[in-house]
């Protein structure tokens, strides 16, 4: 039989959070139902659709494939953590809007996190082929857009990441 609840302490979008959770609680459910950060969506709960993608210690991961207890001590970033401190849309989010890269918006948080990780790690993304960008996005399913506008938005946001990267290194 299960033992009792386990304490977890982690940082989410820069804020320290603590809770007692059952070991079997999925990280996706923890984020949505315990922390009430409902921007992270659950689409398949078996690691295919990518709607629940979050950053765990900087790495984009499916939050439905982790238990909350495994995130003890981790730094998590969800879609709510992407915008600026004043709530202004980040360049990637703005690009999604400009390019009509979302329709129902359900897959969007996962795409934003995946694209954010890709652009952060790929300073020359703007020069990459469509096939490479599409490959980077292929871990997220979208049923509305046909992906074309998402590819366009990622391309549009690329220079902002390169500049931010240069800024950081300076």
């Amino acid at each position, binding site marked *: 039989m299960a033992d009792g609840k386990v304490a977890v302490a982690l940082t989410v979008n820069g804020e320290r959070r603590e809770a007692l959770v059952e070991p079997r*609680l999925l990280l996706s459910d923890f984020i949505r139902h315990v922390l009430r950060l409902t921007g992270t969506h659950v689409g398949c709960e078996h690691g295919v*659709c990518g709607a629940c993608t979050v950053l765990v210690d900087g790495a984009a991961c499916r939050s439905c494939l982790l238990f909350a207890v495994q995130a003890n001590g981790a730094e998590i970033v969800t879609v*709510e953590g992407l915008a600026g401190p004043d709530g202004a*849309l980040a360049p990637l989010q703005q690009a999604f809007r400009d390019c009509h890269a979302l329709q129902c*918006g359900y897959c969007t948080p996962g795409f934003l996190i995946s694209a954010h990780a890709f652009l952060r790690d790929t300073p020359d993304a703007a020069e990459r082929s*469509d096939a490479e960008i599409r490959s980077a996005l292929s871990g997220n399913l979208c*049923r509305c857009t046909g*992906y074309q506008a998402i590819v366009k938005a990622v391309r549009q946001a690329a220079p902002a990441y390169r500049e931010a990267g240069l800024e950081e290194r300076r």
Partner: protein
Amino acid sequence: MTHVGSPLPRLEDARLLAGRGRFTDDVHPDGLLEAHVLRSPHGHARIARIDAAAARALPGVVAVFTFDDLVGVERQMPMILPDRRILHPKTQLLLAAEVVRYVGEPVAFVVAETRYLAEDAAELIEVAYEPLPAASALADAASPGGRPVHADVPDNVAGADEIGFGDAAAALAASPRRLRRRFDLARGHAQPLEPRATVARFDADTDLLTVWDTTQGPIPARAALAAMLGLGIDQVRVIAGDIGGGFGPKMVLYPEEVLVAHAAMRLGRPVKWVEDRMESFVATASEREQIHEVEVGFDEEGRLLGLVDHFWYETGAYIPYGLNTPFVTTMHLLGLYRVPALAVSFQAVFTNRMFVCPYRGAGRPYSAFVIERIMDLIARELGLEPAEVRRRNLIPPEAMPYRYPLTYWDGGPVEFDSGDYPGMLEEALARVGYREIRAAQAAARGEGRYVGVAAAAYCEITGIGPYEGTRVRVQPGGRITVATGVGSQGQGHHTTLAQIVADELGVAPERIEVTVGDTAQFDWGIGSFASRGAVTAGNAARIAARKVARQAREWASEMLEVDAGDLELAEGSVRLKGVPEVGVPLEEIARRADPARGRIGRDPETFRPGLEADGFFNPAQGTMGAGFHACAVEVDPSTGTVAILKYVVVHDCGTVINPLIVEGQVVGGAALGIGGAFYERVAYDEEAQLLTSTYMDYLIPTASEVPAIDVVHFESRSPHNPLGVKGVGEAGTLPVAPALVGAIEDALAPFGATFMTMPLAGPDAVRAAIRAACAARGEEGCRASGPV
């Protein structure tokens, strides 16, 4: 400034991008309980006994409902679309009582403190099943001696119809050439990325039930819930806020929606149920399986002289959504072509599978597949270019409006209202590089490269009635609100309706707040389906906004003491034409139109306070969306893999309200079509066990499978509504399969491989077709020539 026609970025995007959407599962009332459904593991079985005692005893479990525990609620699900052609209007029970008829049929409803506990409890429910023979494949269920799904329907025929015009049999008999083929079209599933979900809260102090629901039709859902729960419609509020994709199946009312509301009322606490992904495959309606047997007659020039088709249509175990889909198939079976005679009949057949409903395209992907494959087959038979055969059969612009002597299900005619079909075909061919590819094809084959090209047409009767409505209100504080019952599952109604109203009221669209899908805001209408939102709600919004504009001019005329005819609405004010400094802001007029004291002095017969109006649009007939898809592919005959080299859509949806949104609809539709053409197939085994219940088995295309799609708008205004719009929501999906299959066949012409099924399920199917073609020619092994 005209906002209709401008590529305005969407107004609803900012909150969705910031993670501030309000989807049903985001609603979390205090005291919330969570539910889980125990479902039938059998395709067909008798329930001998259910014992839920252990589940009820589990700590954290609040209630377990079985059929016998349902008290004070109607236990039979309603017929959503009754129809005289339905011989056996079977619907399911809220929870199965004596017999289960499909894998996934709800048997018990567990409510607990958490979903985790509810799932634990469901494992403790003992159900003794006595398995019965299951009717799985459509072909078997329709055969004499097939296993009956319902004891009182031994032949499994749920309904049937025959339609047509001219003497098709005679036309075929007199045709110089004839051709007969069978087409097998498999089940596909819409799979919106947000699963279905319902949250219900009953307030005993006010006797009001609030239901947050992922429905495409909140107003009919409210009516059905009220009826089943014994409440007035005024006691039920349905909120369909942000919805994560619909595509058809969320138009249907399901048992879970009623069970959640019933449990919330019975238990006095809010209840939530969220479908999980594996459930979605068994518990949400999918579409189709159709088997067509078609015969056509044509002349030596490739002109169609008559078409006779009989098809079988699978309904699944029940038929709540009626015969809508097969009927739509019949009405679009001739595509964009002039054909003198048609005879089509169908039988809807029960099987032991989840019931079906319309899914984006609603029967038209099948009609397009059949007629466009026929075009290709005629071309092959006569040694003509497939594009040329289409050219010779297309309805020409000078024939517009062109009518078939058929009556559509809205009661209107099947009419091709406007457009230049040959012009669109030529544009599609030019864009895809048809002639260039044809010219280079032989040389490429010499290098072992198999490239093919094809074009396929679609038509779609869109924007049908009966009606939709919209309420426009200028509030005294200055807010301008628009509300409609047509919910959005991503189609951008918040923006397009704002654009339409903005033009009429002379304000920026950003100032307009659109609410969709909340029955407390507006409660007349049907819902979002059948590519009708822009036509019906769009024109209704225009009508309502024009009424408000007229009210504003009347009040302003009094306030400014000028003639109403000399006033215009611009920049948020009503002002004197040519003298912009003489004017009064809309909010000031709204305050004047709702005074606290004083005398109004208007005709009581027509007086209405405030700046507010409802508009309704009830189209006399649908509008005809139309277009062509053209694509070029390269096939690797050794592995059967297909690369899409180019994909072009040329389409006509009448007036384009917002090109960004229309292009998004078309491209997204095409991606869905690519899934349906090549990747997605719902598979069952012989005992009606579902084999595709995860995203590892049911393959949705990713960004790597969907190519860049080039979209060209051909705008020909529809004469049937003031905005001149035609629907476009489903258009993108319709001819994808025949376009792709046509191109693949063209690429593989040296092998002679043919494809008469949809989907063309992956590289194995391509290899199988190559092998079959070679075997038919007596060639062993049939290796590809050229490099491998």
